[in-house]
């Protein structure tokens, strides 16, 4: 069930990333390091979402008009 999917968060990686060795799992973070690694995780996540969000948010949201359903 655990997925090994890696997602490129940069813009221009290609199929070659499959040949790279899997990075070693990070050692358990010390308490002091934990907060900054959490912040890093949130930054990474937002960077990733920034990369896929539809451009022109206002127009896209305005265009999402549905007819009623159940």
């Amino acid at each position, binding site marked *: *069930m655990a997925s090994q999917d890696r997602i490129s968060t940069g813009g221009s990686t290609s199929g070659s990333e499959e040949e790279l060795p899997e990075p070693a799992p990070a050692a358990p973070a010390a308490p002091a390091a934990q907060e900054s690694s959490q912040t890093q995780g949130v930054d990474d*996540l937002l960077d990733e979402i920034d990369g896929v969000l539809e451009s022109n948010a206002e127009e896209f949201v305005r265009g999402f*008009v549905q007819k009623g359903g159940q």
Partner: protein
Amino acid sequence: MDTGGRLTGRPQGLPAVGEGISVHRVMGTETEYGIIAPALPSANPTLLSSQVVNAYAATLREGLGNLAGTRWDYTDETPLTDARGFRMDRARAHPSQLTDEPPELDELTAEQIALERGEPTEAAVLMNLVLNNGARLYVDHAHPEYSSPEVTNPLDAVLWDRAGDSVAVAAMERIAATPGFSPVILYKNNTDSKSVSYGSHENYLVPRSVPFSKLAEALIPFFVSRQVICGAGRVGLGALNQDAGFQISQRADFFENEVGLETTVRRPIINTRDEPHAVAEKYRRLHVIIGDANLHEVSNYLKTGTTALVLALIEQGRAPVPVLADPVAALQSISHDASLSRTVQLTDGRAMSGLDLQELYCGAVTAALPPDADDQTRDVVERWQSLLATLRRDPMDAARQVDWIAKLSVLEAYRARDGLDWTDPRLALVDLQYADLRPDKGIYRRLARRGDVELLVGPADVARAVVEPPRDTRAYFRGRCIAEYPAEVVGASWDSLIFELPGERRLQRVQTREPLRGTAELTGALFDAAVDAEDFLSRLLSGPERRVAP
């Protein structure tokens, strides 16, 4: 029609509904997907929805399954029969309530659609499919809908609901890959956050001996508060999105009544449609319309699992009944408070929060749990207890399990980084794109791939559930008939299959009115032995095991 007990009567060894406190009972889910074609802003949504059905049919023709049962059998549909004991006058019903009539394509004709497909001489446009896994994929009003096959437990409900999302993705990808077609995006959400809502329904089999009023009184406070464990989250407040802010539920602001027959207008917390799709003397099908469509598997699991448990409590006369002073107002008040601290009034003078109400029901289930409860029942109860404890401590700690919390975490991160207030369209876009089913674009999909979401079913399980029916309900019989006899099965519904045999002038309608019959155990060998549809029907109808009991 005598089918040797394979399709009728109660099989030995299977649990009946209404026995013991357990999550096991016949259930199923329905998802109406939001749909747009971004390059065609004025496209007719019924047309787009029919493209989804036809695109999936095209993938089936190419070998992913069999195309059959494209005609829905409306014989047993009774959308105007009210569980409170009367029928609505057809003339008084809203047109969208007449779900027992085949849909019409508004002003569009099938011919026009065929022309747009660039296949002017192709066969008729399909508005309905019954899939190999026993599910139904069809055009419901202005949305494509996937109705899952009947399953017997919450984990299977999650699995075959996820299968529906895979079906939707396959259809989207097929449309995108078809020359001349504009890509369509499907969303697993429940509102356009302008003025419109569309449903994701659950169905539970309940013994008819339980009075409907007993169901309604205990379920209203449960449904009003259930959103705290499985709401999908929404940016915007009010049915017309008139105020800025975040709320727990997609659906809450679109409900106006406590109890009623409608599903598209004046929506009620408890829907009274009495259309059992089963032996009407024995069963009700509780049609739950208040839930949000879930992407988080744990949310979906707890949504169906806790509801099954509360139904079991009601059947045993052990359910709490905290009577709310104003259930509709309470539903919206709880939804509008992501801190989970706001309380709502009871008629006895008490004030309780959504969490208090959930703890009341969870406590009653815990107290009634038999010592020999099965593993899945235990798992649901333990997860429910543990989630409520987490929500009590800090709701944001449950982002791996609960849709609204995962969505709110992303929204709050944006607000913190970019200083956005709740009116910023980027937050509305995050809300919308959270539910985008495209694997690369959907924010939920991204969270799942990052490992930020707890999963319950694996990709291989989902892939199997797309093509195989559950083995322990009549969905097995339906799905396997579609798979084995695509040429002869000309119509289907939840409780029937219609065969057209070569050389026979009359259609054969086989009823499947017992949801726990038609299983692999009861009919698998019959399918294996039959050489063709005719042989199958003759074995089915005159098998050696004559039915003895009624």
